[in-house]
Structure formats: structure tokens, C-alpha cells
């Protein structure tokens, strides 16, 4: 059996977050009643003409600068001609030979901590089509043109990815980036961020690419991974059983977890691209590019590097905390209040209990029930030993559900840590007295029983005994395990 190498390239469609469409003044808001956001231009009425939305150009340029690409001073819109009811003009306005962005790169971090650089061939501006509606209509299809003319940035990668995991890592990175840049809301359920995957396999060591299949319209990271897995297995099985992969477009069916042919190359449209005579070439100058550059935020890689350098986080933690601008901002707000010395503690809590609570309640970080100031006030109580890390979990839960401050909860529930050695000693004495058998066993060498005594003391103090202190005092009282009884 041959050793197969997988080759993947992605075409990501990111809907640009402009308020109006790319060639008309219609609103782009999602979810409006059908055809209420379709103007005469979107409906392709006779005589209407497209007028380019400058904001879409700015956003595309911003993306280009963020991936170190060439932002073309002259790019050209072309018409891609084909008939479909949701394509009102009978052609899609896109960029073909002269895209606005070309030759960029993106570095992704894989799960094993290895980084890989993926080439971005190009990114071009185009308009989205409308939607066909089939539900609730007998013997007819409906057309909703609200989405027609929504600006898209199509980001085309080089065939640089060698596994489904790499493809997902790349897609996630682009997802992070477009949201950082505030050029796309990244909402995959609403289709604001979706991708087509070009997948092929070849015997390892072979230079030329195998024949690829293009899997269309994948709108979740999980589907991208599963669809690629399925497609790779299908192609390998096909080749190994003597068949040949044909170049075709396939659809991924998430219910059945399989890809199915949509149309083959032979059936593919001849799109008859030609420059759109209704639109002038897009000409932008260095001043424009400099102005766009000035609006670039700190990019995720730079932020992660800063977290490692200035806050001493691990590369992994830094990567997680810089994965979205909002999460990074939350974390930095906590650190700002708590002090950089405790950044690791802050990181653990943001990535741990906070993230779990957000996931559980299906909330965005911006809607966290515990704001960063409140979390840092709570962490301050761990730092000053008012509460233990364990008690802190309960305090956090109470803060999340009750909305009160950490101090209020600590006071109200009497959760303040017991740090009075005398008080802890008293409890230890009582516990030892009540458990003579365990004491004997411990002293006979069953050192695991140390934990039993810790648990008993914690139980008796309601978990409030300072763990470190308890540890020291208990050791002193019990003596080392295996010691001869000295009492």
C-alpha cells in the first residue's frame, strides 16, 4: 500500500462587514424579510449601473496589509457569466485577472506547537448571489435577493496544507484575523464565513499534484475537517482500487458525512470572464494604502508574542488568549488590574473557569457575567491568601450566578480562609483523635492516608483552611509516615 500525501487548498469567502452592499446602497443586515433589502440595482433592473462601495476596497486592502501581501494599486472588476435565478444580472461581478490582494502569507500553529506558513495566492472582491427558497412553496421556487450584492472577500490559499488539521488551523487563523481587522463578523451560521476546499492526494514523494475535487460551501470548522477526511479516504480508496479521481465539484452532506458530486469539469460553466465595462479599474495610491495601514490593530501574532515576552505566558496560552480581539482585551483588562506578575494566574482563570462558564451558557466573552474588573478583584483574594484556589471556584460560580462581588460573597458565605495556626491545630488534633486506626496505618507506612487527613480537616473547616499551612501543620503532627510511634 502506497503512502499517500494529502494536498489541500482553501478558498474562503468572508462577507465584508460594510453597512451597504458592494455596488448598491442597500443595507446588508442579515435576516430581513425576503427582498426587502434589494434595490433596483440588486434586482438588475434594465438600465441600472453598479457603483463601487469604497469601504469594501478599504477592508480588502486592510486584509492584504495584515497578511503582508501586495495590495494592487490597480485592480479590475470582471464579469463572471452564468445563468441562475439567484444571480439577477446573469453575471457576478468579481475580480479575475487583477485581484486587489496577491501573494500574502499566514503562519498557523498546529496542535503539536509546530508552526507552518501557508501562502495566500490572492484575495479578491466580489458580490454574493441571492438565495433560492424551496420551503413552503408548491411547484415553485422563491428567490430572496437580500444577499445579492453583499460584498465578499474571496481568500484563495496556495495548496500548502497537508492534512485536515492544517486546513482547519489555517481557516481558524483567517477567521481570527478577519474579526481582528473588523472586516467580517465571522458568523458561520449566517454564512458570513464559509469555504470551499480543494482536495487531492498523491503518493508521497511525487512532485505533481493529483487530480483535485472541490468541496463547496463548508460552513463550520468541523465540517471542513470531516469533509476533508471523507474526501481523502474516498480518493485513496478509489485510486487503490484501480479508479481515477475526476476533477469535479462536490457537496458535503453533514447528515450522512459524505461528499457527493455536484458537477464535473465537463459540465462546468464557461464563465466567459471579461472586464466589467460599467466599472472603472480600482486605482488606489500610496496615501490610501498608508491611511489603511494606520487603521491596522495589533495583529494576533504580535499580541501573542507580546503575551509571551511581557507576561511570561506559554506560547500555547498566548495563542489561545489572542485568538480573538475581545478575549485578548478581557485578559488584558484582568492583568491590568491584577498586575503583570500574576498574568499566569489570570490566564488560567480566563482559559479555565471563565471559558467553561461562557461555553456552558453559550455566551460571547463580551457578554460574560463576570466582567474583567470583578474577576481580577476575586483573583486578588487568591493572591492575598484570603481564599484558596479551590474556594475561589465556588466564589466564581456564585459571582457568575448572583452577580455580586467576590468580597461580598466571601463575607456573606464566610469563605475567608483560616490562617490562624492555632485554630487549624485544634481541628487537626480533633481529627487525629477521632481516627486512631488511620493514624496507626499512616505511621505504619501507608502514606496515602495523608490525603485522608487533609480531607477530614478541610471538611471540618468547610474547606477554608489555608492549604499550605494545613499541609505543614499536619505533617508536624502526624510525623513522617513509617516513623515509629513516639507517643
Amino acid at each position, binding site marked *: 500500500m502506497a503512502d499517500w500525501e494529502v494536498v489541500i487548498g482553501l478558498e474562503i469567502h468572508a462577507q465584508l462587514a460594510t453597512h451597504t452592499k458592494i455596488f448598491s446602497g442597500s443595507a446588508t443586515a442579515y435576516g430581513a424579510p425576503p427582498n426587502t433589502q434589494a434595490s*433596483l440595482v440588486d*434586482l*438588475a*433592473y*434594465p*438600465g*441600472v*449601473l*453598479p*457603483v*463601487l462601495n469604497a469601504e469594501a476596497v478599504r477592508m480588502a486592502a486592510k486584509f492584504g496589509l495584515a497578511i503582508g501581501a501586495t495590495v494592487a494599486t490597480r485592480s479590475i472588476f470582471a*464579469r463572471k*457569466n452564468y*445563468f441562475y*435565478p439567484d444571480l*439577477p*444580472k*446573469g*453575471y457576478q461581478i468579481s475580480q479575475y485577472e487583477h485581484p486587489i490582494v496577491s501573494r500574502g502569507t499566514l503562519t498557523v500553529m498546529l496542535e503539536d506547537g509546530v508552526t507552518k506558513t501557508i501562502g495566500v495566492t490572492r484575495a479578491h472582491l466580489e458580490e454574493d448571489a441571492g438565495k433560492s427558497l424551496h420551503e413552503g412553496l408548491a411547484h415553485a421556487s422563491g*428567490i430572496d435577493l437580500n444577499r445579492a450584492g453583499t460584498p465578499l472577500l474571496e481568500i484563495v490559499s496556495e495548496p500548502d496544507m497537508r492534512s485536515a488539521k492544517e486546513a482547519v488551523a489555517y481557516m481558524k487563523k483567517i477567521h481570527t484575523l478577519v474579526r481582528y481587522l473588523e472586516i467580517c463578523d465571522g458568523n458561520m451560521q449566517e454564512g458570513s464565513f464559509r469555504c470551499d476546499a480543494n482536495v487531492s492526494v498523491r503518493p508521497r514523494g511525487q512532485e505533481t499534484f493529483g487530480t483535485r475535487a472541490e468541496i463547496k460551501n463548508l460552513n463550520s470548522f468541523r465540517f471542513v475537517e470531516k469533509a476533508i477526511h471523507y474526501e481523502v479516504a474516498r480518493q485513496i480508496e478509489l485510486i487503490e482500487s484501480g479508479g481515477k479521481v475526476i476533477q469535479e465539484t462536490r457537496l458535503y452532506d453533514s447528515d450522512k458525512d459524505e461528499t457527493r458530486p455536484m458537477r464535473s469539469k465537463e459540465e462546468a460553466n*464557461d464563465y*466567459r*470572464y*471579461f472586464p466589467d*465595462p*460599467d*466599472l*472603472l479599474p480600482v486605482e488606489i495610491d500610496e496615501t490610501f494604502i498608508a491611511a489603511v495601514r494606520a487603521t491596522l490593530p495589533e495583529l494576533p501574532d504580535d499580541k501573542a508574542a507580546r503575551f509571551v515576552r511581557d507576561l511570561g505566558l506559554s506560547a500555547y496560552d498566548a495563542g489561545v488568549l489572542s485568538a480573538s480581539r475581545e478575549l485578548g482585551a478581557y485578559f488584558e483588562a484582568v492583568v491590568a488590574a491584577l498586575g503583570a506578575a500574576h498574568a499566569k494566574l489570570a490566564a488560567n482563570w480566563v482559559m479555565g473557569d471563565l471559558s467553561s462558564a461562557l461555553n456552558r451558557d453559550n455566551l460571547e466573552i463580551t457578554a460574560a457575567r463576570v466582567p474583567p474588573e470583578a474577576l481580577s478583584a476575586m483573583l486578588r483574594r487568591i493572591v492575598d491568601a484570603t481564599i484558596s484556589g479551590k474556594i475561589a471556584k465556588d466564589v466564581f460560580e456564585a459571582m457568575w450566578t448572583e452577580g455580586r462581588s467576590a468580597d461580598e460573597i466571601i463575607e456573606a458565605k464566610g469563605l475567608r480562609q483560616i490562617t490562624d495556626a492555632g485554630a487549624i491545630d485544634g481541628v487537626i488534633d480533633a481529627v487525629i483523635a477521632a481516627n486512631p486506626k488511620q493514624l496507626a496505618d499512616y505511621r505504619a507506612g501507608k502514606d496515602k492516608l495523608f490525603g485522608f487527613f487533609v480531607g477530614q480537616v478541610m471538611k471540618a473547616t468547610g474547606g477554608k483552611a489555608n492549604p499550605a499551612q494545613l499541609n505543614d501543620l499536619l505533617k508536624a503532627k502526624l510525623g513522617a509516615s513509617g516513623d515509629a510511634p513516639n507517643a
Partner: protein
Amino acid sequence: MLHNLTLGELADRLADGRISSVELTRHFLARIERLNPALNALITLTAETALQSAAAADLRLAAGERAPLLGIPLIHKDIFCTDGIRTSCGSRMLDNFIAPYDATVVARLKSAGAVMLGKANMDEFAMGSSNETSYYGPVKNPWDLKKVPGGSSGGSAAAMAARLAAYTTGTDTGGSIRQPAALTGVTGLKPTYGRVSRYGMIAYASSLDQAGVFARSAADAARVLKVIAGFDPLDSTSVDEPVPDYPALLEGPLTGLRIGILREFFDGLDARNASLIHEALKVYGSLGATTVEVSLPHLPLSVPAYYVVAPAEASSNLSRFDGVRFGYRCADPRDLSDLYERSRGEGFGIEVKRRIMTGTYVLSTGYFDAYYLKAQRVRRLITDDFRAAFEKVDLLIGPTTPTPAFDIGANIEDPVTMYLNDIYTVSANLAGLPGMSLPCGFIEGLPMGLQLLGPHFSEGQLLRAAHQFQTATDWHTHAPRGYE
């Protein structure tokens, strides 16, 4: 008679109250009622709204408002969208199409107080040189009802020649204003590409289409151009250049004006046609202009280049007519492809289909480079030829058409002969230049046109040269018999 007055004279009479806009409108409506049935120059008559607009114009006049076109009736080519009024583009495809908005040209004239009498017949989707491809039947030439008026703006030209309105609008993609103006003995002006907005003008070939005007004289055309010209934010290809006061530029001697005679336009030219042009050149000589022979070596390639570029763009522009959202839809479509095939098959006429197929072919993989790209290269060469010529001369002169108006039916089965009618006009569209056609005499009783071409945005100079010619001659005042 009112219908022979210039726009300036009409404006004066409206201003001093000698006539009202309603009277003037009734006068033209009566002429249309009497004369149009034989001509078929109009697809849609809008008498009622015309009288309402006229009454509104009279109120503005009574309130003391004075504007060059206020209260004066016109006819729009049926390619311009008119809010609430059928805009057919000469096609069955849009026979039922009520435009929901005004084209920029229409809107500008409307706010200037112009009174629209109706919509003029035209070749289907502006594809034709004889007005025989219209779904609404051919337009007759008022000079001889057996003859074509030219196309595609044949209805606008015939209506102008028959004095059915004070002026009419048209569009010129390959000669569709200048050629019918020549064949009907009226003044036609095709402005620089981008001078007048294309918004609301149903597209044939977007990179070539330009709106313009038919008038009885260059002076009248100048008045109309001043209103319709100018940047339009709704048309990205309209140019943000100031609009000169064209009527103020008409006077002034032509001393020192350098006129280029295009050698290629005279190769094989009919002797009678050539002699009319040479007579015109003598007039220009007497007005102080000098003449120089110039050559545009790539000019003979303009017709083939045009018939690649224009159909290519048309094939894409006309894709929106799919029976889904507006326009003709076939009865009882079985499925989607049946809907497309029969709606388009039944809705479009033969010349439109021919150009859609030609255009689809030249854009197809494997043919794109050989046809479309090559034609675009030719286009650049022609543009460069003109640029070089305009370094030596101020304007170019030649015939507008090779022959006078031909018989209805004579060329319709022979597209190539028909296309060669555009031989002297298409180059200006390929290069985006402004051009005019002026009446300059007759061959066998049929009017002929003198074509003037100028550099980009030289409309002021073109209009002055045309006006001075019309001051020295009276060809433009001749009316066909029965239409005086």
C-alpha cells in the same frame, strides 16, 4: 409654424406669453396624431402626461421662471427608462415593462421642465442600422416612406425630421445617432463617452453606449446638451468634467481652425457623396478654416473590432432578461431551463439573438484571445491613431454614411452589408470621441450627412464648427415634403 421654430425662439415665445406650453404641446400632439401613423416613429404616446407636464411648465413660466427647455416638448428614445411609463427598448422582451424610475437623462430634462410627448421607436435593444429590427415594426423615413430612417435611433430621427417634437433624444453605440441623423436630414450629436450619464439607459454595449440628441440645428443641440451633460454619481463611467455653457460657445470665427480630411473615409467613396463633402469643405474654407489630409491607418479594422466588442458586452448585458423578475416570460415553463430558453427564445428577435450568440462565442474559452482581446488591441490602436491625428488637427471631417437611405427590406437578410453602414461611425465609439452629423445636401432627393469628429470633450468646438456651417448654409432647414 411652431414646429419650425428653434428652441431659442420657442423659449422666447413661452417667456413672453405669445404661446403656452399646453398650446405648443397640443400642436405637436396633433402633428403626431396626423403624421405618425405613416411613419411608426413612436412606440408609446404619452399625451395625457405630456399635457400635465405642459400645464406644470406653464405654472412655472407664469411664476417668472425662465429656463432654456422649460415647457418645450420632446420625444425620448424608448431605451431611456421613464418612471411609470412603458420602456420597451423596441423588444417584445420589454413590451410589458413599466420602468419604476427615470434615467438620469430623463430626470434632468424633467426637472428642466421639458415635456415628454412619447417614446420613440428603435431597433431592438439598439441593435440595427435601419430600425427594421424593432418588435414594433420598421420606422419609415419621412423623405421617402419606402426607405429606412437608419438606426438604431430611427424613431427619434424620423420624428425629428417630421417635426413631431422640438428635439428628440437618442443613443449612439456604433453610429445610432449620427447615421439616422444623416439619413433623415437632421442634426445629430453623439457626445464624448462619459459626458452624459448612462444610468437608466438600457445597456447594449456599455463601453460604447452614449446618450445624445437629435435637433434641427447645432444651436438647438447645444441647448439640450447643456442640460443632459455632466457627472452622475450613479454612473461610474460618467466623467467629472465641468459642463461648459455650450450655447455661449457657438459664435466666433473659424479662422485658423485646422480640419483633417480622413483619407480612409474617401477610399472607394461614392463620387456624389464625396462631392457633397468637398462642397462642405469649401464652405469651411470660406469661413477661414484650413484643411489637412490625415490618415488613420487602423480605421479599416473598426467595423470588425466593433462587431466583436459590442456583441461581447451585449451578450452579458442582456443576460438579465431571463423571464424571472420582469419582462417577457414564456407560458407554462416546465422547468428552469425551459423558462430561460423559451422566455429568451420568444422574447428576443433575430438580430439580438445573432449578437448574443456572436458575443458569447468571442468570449468563450479558446476564442477569447483571438477575438475579444484582439479587438480590444485594435481599439487601442484606433484610439492612438485618433490621438495622433488630433495633434495635427482640431477636428476631422468625412461622410456620415456611405449611401443615402436604402429601401426597407433591402439589407435585412444580409447582416454584413448592414453592418458596413456603420463604417464611418463606429470608430468614434471605439475611441470614445464626440461626433456630429449635419445635413450637407441630397443624393436623389435623399438627405446626406457631413460627419464631424473631435477630441474628447471638444463638444463646444464641434458645436461651434457645426453652427458656423449652418449659419453659412441652409441644408438643415430643409424639411421633407408634407412635413414642412
